[in-house]
């Protein structure tokens, strides 16, 4: 136990950083710069508009955010239980570092590479070119924190014209002897006319508190198709910040599916920028919250270029004393004519104490565009409930059916059968 008390969270982060720095891979200057900016900006509290509902400052006051990590050993059997689809390649990332011994990467076809990003930024020109490039000058504190302290993660590179039948499951596991933070760092680069499915899942093992500050950069080249899943399954000890910064090129299609099904505290920043025309982006999200869990989705779709299409559908089911946030920004910049941008957020509150804060935010500076947004929040439909019960369906089963029905609109958009079945199964057990 450290004897230093009365340190501010920022001072503790800095001290922890100095301790860790000598052992970290890559460009130390970039790390120092990130840390300096983080120190200058400070840690978000309620006064930060983007973080006002979830107040990360409270989290940063806890000692484990600046604590050395002591990982627990993971048995291959434990990993087997977390596999979502047996046929895909498996990359296991434990506490933010790729573990090749637990992974199964030999199933990948030629032209698809999955490597440790810590190695790739040294040995791979593409990784070096794009590392931190999509983040750009982001001053988001969690991006900076990851830039300063990440120890690795996965680099996925799909060569041009390679349409992989085999998907990649990136399994992130946080497991610790004492509470700690990990910073998984991913970079996905999909070359032109390629196609890949990437399923990231997030799990915790063991009873101690974890904080996962994941950061993923995605580059989707011309005409490429990417299905990117995030399955947030961390248990009651899991706290997660998950940032995805994606940039897409001409004629590409980037589809994201965010399933927030477990975890004590989850914040997602999903930022997609169209850099060339005729590209599509799809953002599907389903959040199931109970107990005192918190989930906050911030999405940004940046129509910087004409002739692109984005479609966003997020749904939330909130029970008990849970707290949900949806903030969906769509920017249509001045020259982005012929933009189609659609956004829908719907929520049902199953209890009096559950809370949802939803805010669609469209900023449109072009005139020849089609944009729409809609949001609704309500209770479970009592008339529908009575109708089902009047046909002999018990109240619990009727509620289950109605929640399934509510979620169906999102689930039906999932092209992966195994994932869809997994989500449906989780939905059925949500009340148990």
């Amino acid at each position, binding site marked *: 136990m450290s004897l230093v008390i009365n340190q501010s969270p920022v001072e503790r982060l800095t001290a922890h950083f100095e301790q860790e720095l000598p052992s970290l891979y890559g460009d130390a200057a970039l790390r120092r710069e990130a840390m300096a900016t983080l120190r200058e900006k400070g840690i978000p509290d309620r006064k930060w508009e983007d973080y006002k509902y979830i107040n990360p400052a409270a989290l940063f006051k806890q000692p484990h955010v600046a604590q050395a990590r002591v990982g627990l050993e993971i048995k291959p059997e434990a990993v087997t239980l977390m596999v979502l689809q047996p046929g895909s390649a498996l990359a296991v990332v434990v506490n933010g570092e790729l573990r090749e011994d637990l992974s199964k990467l030999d199933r990948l076809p030629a032209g698809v590479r999955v490597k440790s990003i810590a190695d790739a930024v040294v040995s791979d020109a593409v990784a070096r070119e794009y590392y931190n490039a999509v983040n750009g000058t982001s001053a988001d504190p969690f991006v900076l924190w990851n830039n300063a302290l990440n120890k690795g993660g996965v680099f996925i590179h799909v060569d041009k014209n390679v349409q992989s039948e085999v998907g990649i499951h990136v399994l992130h596991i946080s497991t610790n002897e004492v509470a700690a933070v990990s910073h998984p760092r991913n970079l996905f680069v999909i070359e032109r006319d390629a196609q890949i499915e990437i399923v990231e899942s997030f799990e915790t093992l063991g009873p101690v508190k974890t904080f996962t500050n994941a950061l993923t950069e995605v580059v989707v080249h011309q005409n490429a198709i990417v299905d990117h899943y995030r399955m947030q399954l961390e248990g009651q000890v899991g706290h997660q910040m998950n940032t995805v910064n994606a940039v897409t090129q001409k004629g590409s299609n980037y589809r994201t599916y965010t399933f927030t099904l477990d975890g004590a505290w989850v914040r997602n920043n999903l930022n997609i920028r169209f850099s060339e025309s005729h590209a599509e982006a799809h953002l599907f999200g389903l959040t199931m919250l109970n107990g005192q869990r918190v989930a906050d989705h911030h999405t940004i779709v940046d129509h910087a270029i004409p002739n692109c299409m984005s479609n966003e559908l997020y749904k939330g089911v909130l029970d008990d004393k849970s707290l949900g946030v949806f903030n969906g920004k769509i920017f249509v910049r001045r020259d982005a004519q012929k933009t189609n941008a659609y956004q829908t957020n719907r929520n049902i509150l199953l209890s009096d104490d559950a809370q949802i804060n939803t805010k669609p935010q469209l900023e449109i500076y072009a005139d020849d565009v089609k944009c729409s947004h809609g949001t609704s929040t309500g209770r479970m439909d009592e008339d529908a409930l*009575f*109708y089902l019960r009047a046909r002999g369906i018990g*109240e619990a089963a009727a509620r289950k059916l109605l929640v399934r029905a509510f979620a169906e609109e999102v689930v039906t958009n999932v092209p992966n059968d195994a994932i869809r079945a997994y989500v449906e199964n989780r939905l059925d057990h949500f009340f148990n």
Partner: protein
Amino acid sequence: MQASVEGKEILRGLNLEVKPGEVHAIMGPNGSGKSTLASVLAGREDYEVTGGEVLFNGKDLLDLSPEDRAREGLFLAFQYPIEIPGVSNINFLKTAINEIREYRDMDPIEPKEFLALVKEKQKLVELDGKLANRSVNEGFSGGEKKRNEIFQMAMLEPKLCILDETDSGLDIDALRIVANGVNQLRSPERSFIVVTHYQRLLDYIVPDFVHVLYQGKIVKSGPKELALELEEKGYDWIKAETSVAI
């Protein structure tokens, strides 16, 4: 039986006995309590039953949840069937049938048997097979919704069916189809309570008894000819007669 909603008394003492195989029509002017009666029998929680009992095969229905009433063999055909997007008609019916069977200590229905049953019962009300696969009542026309109610009734094979203003909003062809479906479901064991404002439905579903509900009470009962008399004279003479009696 007496019942009230939000403190306002709607049913003010009502006695009715329905024997197996009988069809009872309940008629009455708007606001007389007809739909309240149907809802109270089915177990809608917006109503408070302030007194009395409803004996159904020896059990007091008022002690049972809506689902247990249905499992005992009660069926309410809704005046306004609810649309439930995302729940397929078929899945909904299968769940209902299996919950009812579980209540009666029976095994779940075999998929093959279920599908055969669906096929057979759809014909009763000329329901398009495509509708059965769609979400419950979603995007159905008024007539399709009412036919779907009768289709569900046929599938669940209840002992007592309550038809709540099933004729409302139906054109004559749809009315004929719905009534024809109901008539095919008549049997010596199955009873019906047909709640309606107009006599029109009773041309097709011929009742054994007609009761007039007014101000929460049955003020007149008679044979099927009473319905014709009401059609001819309207409800005013009943109102006049009742106010004298009170």
